[in-house]
Each structure stands twice: as structure tokens, then as C-alpha cells.
């Protein structure tokens, strides 16, 4: 369960003021560019702190929980893989002792990453890089996965393939996800409920 209760954050041109609650396995946030979608994800991930309000994940208020202890997987828009590491080192970066090798292998299998493991990040295509970033977030066993425009920057033919992987993550790995996009058609394929945001406020 994820809930934001009057979460406020001043942005450059308006103030973010968001309240919503969702228990869906996949929730979408739709809105035009610059409407505050990414800021919402950053607040939930713990990268930014709200000025006021409460962020609740699985019945726990996480406002004062640092990002590293929130167990929230975050796949930001654009390039985010550590460029000085191989794919395997990227994927294992967040692995803690209690995580089983079996789960890591399952994620690698679901996202079809095994052949990429020894490659450098620079040798990956856009679609491959997205899958690796997804895998890196997933192997930490997050209780929530935040996806910021996961198809941005990818060629059209790749969209369906990445969507297919996201659906497999949702159905096979059963990780709840919050999916941000400015494309309603893209959201419809993955999420079961969608919020619309405009100028920092949920409008529908």
C-alpha cells in the first residue's frame, strides 16, 4: 500500500501538493511534462524531502527514513547505470546478504540479462540498459518499484518488448509498481489504475 497525504514540495513554477492512496499492483501517474511526476517519485524514493505531509508505504510513515533504508526500487528516466561498472556489478550493487542467489537468477532470467552480464555498460543498447536498470532495482527485493518514463529515449519497435518485460515483472515477480508516463496508451498496457496530475496536483 502506498499513500501520500497532503505532501507538499515547492517546485520552480508551482507547488507540488499531492494526496492519493493506492493498493493496486501497478499504478500509473499520467501528466504532461513538467507537471511534477518525477518529483513525486523522488519524494517516495527518499531523494527529496517534502516540506510537509506524510508518505506512507505499507502502513509505515517513511518521511524520516533515508533513501537507503526505504527498500524502494527506483528506475529514473534516462541513463542511470553506473558507467564504470560491468552489467553484473551494476546488478549486484544493491544485493545484501539475505537476498538469495536464486532470486537474483530469476530476475536475470525473467529480464533475459544472462548474456549481458560481462558487458560494460557502454556496450548496451537502450532497451538492454533499461532491462539492466530494472533488474538492478528488482534484485534488492523492493517493496515498491518506481518507474520514471521507462520507454523514454527508446525506439518505437522496442516499446512493446520493454512493456512485455514490465508485465512479466508485475505478474511473475509480483512487485508493486508506480509507473510514470506522459503517454496514456503506454500506461494502459501495464497499470490497472491511473492518476492524472497537472501542475503538481492530482486532478483525476
Amino acid at each position, binding site marked *: 500500500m502506498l499513500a501520500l497525504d497532503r505532501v507538499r514540495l515547492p517546485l520552480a513554477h508551482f507547488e507540488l501538493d499531492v494526496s492519493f492512496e493506492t493498493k493496486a499492483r501497478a499504478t500509473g501517474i499520467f501528466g504532461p511534462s513538467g507537471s511534477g511526476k518525477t518529483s513525486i517519485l523522488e519524494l517516495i524514493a*527518499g531523494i527529496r524531502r517534502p516540506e510537509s505531509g506524510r508518505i506512507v508505504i505499507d502502513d509505515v510513515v517513511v518521511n524520516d527514513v533515508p*533513501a*537507503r533504508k*526505504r527498500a524502494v526500487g*527506483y528506475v*529514473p528516466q534516462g*541513463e*542511470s547505470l553506473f558507467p*564504470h561498472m560491468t552489467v553484473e556489478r551494476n546488478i549486484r550493487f544493491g544485493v545484501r546478504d539475505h537476498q538469495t542467489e536464486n532470486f537474483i537468477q530469476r530476475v536475470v532470467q525473467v529480464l533475459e540479462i544472462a548474456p549481458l552480464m560481462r558487458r560494460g555498460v557502454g556496450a548496451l543498447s537502450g532497451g538492454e540498459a533499461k532491462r539492466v536498470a530494472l533488474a538492478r532495482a528488482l534484485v534488492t527485493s523492493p517493496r515498491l518499484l518506481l518507474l520514471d518514463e521507462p520507454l523514454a529515449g527508446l525506439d518505437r519497435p522496442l516499446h512493446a518488448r520493454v512493456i512485455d518485460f514490465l508485465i512479466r515483472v508485475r505478474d511473475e515477480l509480483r512487485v508493486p509498481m508506480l509507473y510514470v508516463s506522459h503517454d496514456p496508451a503506454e500506461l494502459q498496457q501495464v497499470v490497472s489504475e491511473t492518476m492524472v496530475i497537472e501542475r503538481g496536483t492530482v486532478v483525476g
Partner: protein
Amino acid sequence: MTSIVVFTLWCAAISTAIVIPIGLAISWALARLRWPGKSIVETIVALPLVMPPVATGLILLKLFGRRGPFGFLEVVFTWRAVVIAMIAMSTPLFVRSARVALEEVNVRYEHVARTLGASEARVFFAITLPLAFRGIIAGTVLALARAIGEFGATIVVAGNIPGRTTTLSLAIFDRIQLGKDSEAYRLLVISVIIAFVALWINEAIVRRRPNAGP
């Protein structure tokens, strides 16, 4: 002559070994944090770059002299004063280079590392530092070269005591003063070789390391 070269390299190495951690801490605080008095610290750190080295030496003499606040350390006119002068003169160069390198590391990588459970120390050592590697190496070489060539501050705070505080630069000056031109030229050639080797090693390290990304 060998002892002068060894002494200079030894002092410069100690100075650089001290400058790196201090300079990294200052650079990181300037690049990543907002805090009151930041601009004052920025100015103080940059001061030795624009002040005459002799003036910096005089400040050090006042600070470390017998009646100064750090007089109890009794470093003036010893090899330790040579190292202190080198630190004072090379820290600004290191900080300028390291700060730019740290600022160029995309904070997105650091944010993602934190969401993956990394502590602040791990974020710095596993993400920020390797990505800023080139700039930090360049800063280290600059600091080392500056330390080896240090003259003005050293002569004020450490003097030019043969066998105790005479560095390569001081020795060259000394030989010129005494009209020992051939010895001065020999020391000059050694200086050029040291500078060449330092820059060559720098290039080799930076070239071997793949670009650390945007």
C-alpha cells in the same frame, strides 16, 4: 645533489599524501553541500593561488612561528615547514581540479546508489570517487608538481638550510646566486625530467581508465 632531489621528492610526496584527503573533503563539501560561510572558505582556499608565495610564507611564519598559535609544534626552519609550505601552496590547485571533477559527476548516480541501499561512505567511494577519477588524478599531479617546484613560501618559513631544508628550487636559486651555473643547469635538467615523468604518468593513468561517464 641526489640528496636534494630525494629530499624534495620525499617532502612533496608527504605533502601530496596529506593534500589528497584534506583536499577531497574540502572539494566534496564545496561541490555537494550548501552551508553558511561556504563562500568564505572558497576564498580562503583560493587565496594562495593569487597571493605572492612569499606573502603566504609570511602568514605561515606568523602561524607556526614561536609566538604564533601553532608555535608549540616547533616546525619553523625544519623539513616539516617545507612540507607545510608545500601543502599550503598545492592544496588550492588540487581543490580546483577535484571540485570540478566532483561537480561533473551526475548526482543521479548517487541518488540511485542510495535507493539501492548504499551508505553515504559507499556512495562516495564506489560511485563519486571513481567517476571523478580523472579530475582527481589531474589534481594530484598538479599538487605534486606544485609541491616539487615550491619556492617562495618555503624559503620564508623553512629557510634554505643545506642538508635540512634545501629543496630543488632553493638549490637552483642558491647555485645561481653563487655563480655555479653548471650545477644550476644540472638541477634544472633534473627538474624538467621530474615534471616530464609526472605528466607522462598522469597521461598514462588517465588514458588507461575508461571515461567515467557524463
